[in-house]
C-alpha cells in the first residue's frame, strides 16, 4: 500500500460512484430511503472524523490543544464565519497553545 495507490483507488471509486448514478433508472429516486441513507452516511462519517481527529492519539484518547481549537472553530462556524477563517483560527489557536506550553 502506497500513498499513490490510496489516491488513485479513492479517485477511481469516486468517479465510478458518480457515473453509476447516470446509468441506473430514475425510479430509484421515488424511494427516499437510498437518498436518506447516503446523506446520513455523509453526516456519520464527518462527525466520526471530527471526534477522532479531535480526541485520538493512536489508540488512546488525549485531551490537548485540539479541544479549545475546535471549540473556537465551532464558535466561528456558528457566527457564519467563512470556512477558511474558522479552520485557520483553529490551527493558530492550537499552535499558540503549544508554543507557549499551555497545552500538549
Amino acid at each position, binding site marked *: 500500500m502506497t500513498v499513490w495507490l490510496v489516491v488513485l483507488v479513492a479517485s477511481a471509486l469516486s468517479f465510478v460512484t458518480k457515473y453509476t448514478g*447516470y446509468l441506473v433508472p430514475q425510479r430509484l429516486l421515488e424511494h427516499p430511503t437510498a437518498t436518506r441513507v*447516503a446523506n446520513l452516511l455523509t453526516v456519520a462519517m464527518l462527525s466520526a472524523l471530527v471526534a477522532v481527529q479531535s480526541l485520538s492519539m493512536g489508540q488512546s484518547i488525549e485531551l490537548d490543544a485540539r479541544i479549545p481549537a475546535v471549540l473556537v*472553530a465551532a464558535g466561528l462556524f456558528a457566527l457564519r464565519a467563512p470556512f477558511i477563517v474558522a479552520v485557520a483560527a483553529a*490551527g493558530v489557536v492550537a499552535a499558540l497553545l503549544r508554543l507557549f506550553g499551555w497545552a500538549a
Partner: protein
Amino acid sequence: MSFSAPEKVALRAGIAVGAAVATYGFSFGALSVASGLDVWQTCVLSLFLFSGGSQFAVVGVLASGGISAGWTAIASSAFLGLRNGIYSIRMAPVVGTSALIRPVAAQLTIDESTAVALNQNEPRAQRVGFWTTGIAVYIGWNLTTLAGALVGNVLGDVNGLGLDAVAAAAFLGLLWPRLKQLQAGVVAAASALLATTLIPLAPPGVPVLAAAAVALLVGLTNWFHRPENQDAHLQPDDSSDPGDVPGLHRTDSAS
C-alpha cells in the same frame, strides 16, 4: 450566445458558488501537503476524486493513521462520496443522455452543482446552473488546491504545530451545514460517541468506519424523522454547502 433571464440567474449563482468553494480548496491543498502527501498527489485528488469531503477524509485518515490506514482512508472516502451517486440519478434528465457528455457531467456532479441546478425552475436554466457551477467549482477548486499545496510546502513545520486541529476543524466545517434536521443531529451525536468509544478498542480507522452503522440504522428505519417545514423547501438556497439538497426527490418536486 445569449441567455434568458432565468438562465442568467443560474449562471450568476454558479459563478458565485464557484468563488466561495475555491477558499475550501486552499485549505485542502495546505492540509494535504502538511499531512505528508506531495504536491502532485494533492492535485491528483482534486483533479480526479473531486469531492471535498472525501478528499479531506483521505488526507485526514492518512495523517492520523499513516499508510497502514490506507484502506480505511479509501473506505471513508467512498462512503462519504455515495451521496454523489444519488445526485447523479437526479441530474441525469437535466444533462441529457449523450454518451460523450455523461462522463464529463459525472465528474462534475457534486453538492454544489446539484444544488444550484435544482434551485432553478426551468429545464434550460437547470442545465445552465449545473454546468456553470460544475465548471466554476472545478477550475476554482483545482487552482486553489495547487496554491494551498505550494504555500503549505513553504510553511512546512510551522504549519505542523496546529495541523491536527486544522483537520478536525475542517471536518466540523463540512458537517455544520448538514445539521439542520433533527435526524442528522442525532446521527452526528451518536456517530461521534460511537467513534470515541471505539478509539481505545479498535485499530485506527475502524472507529470512523463503524459510524456507518449509525447512518444505516437511522436511515433504513427513518428513526427520528420529523415532518419538514414545507415552506423551507420552496426557498431558493444559494449556500455553497447545500447539505440535504432541496427538491432531490422527484416526489417532493411534484408536490
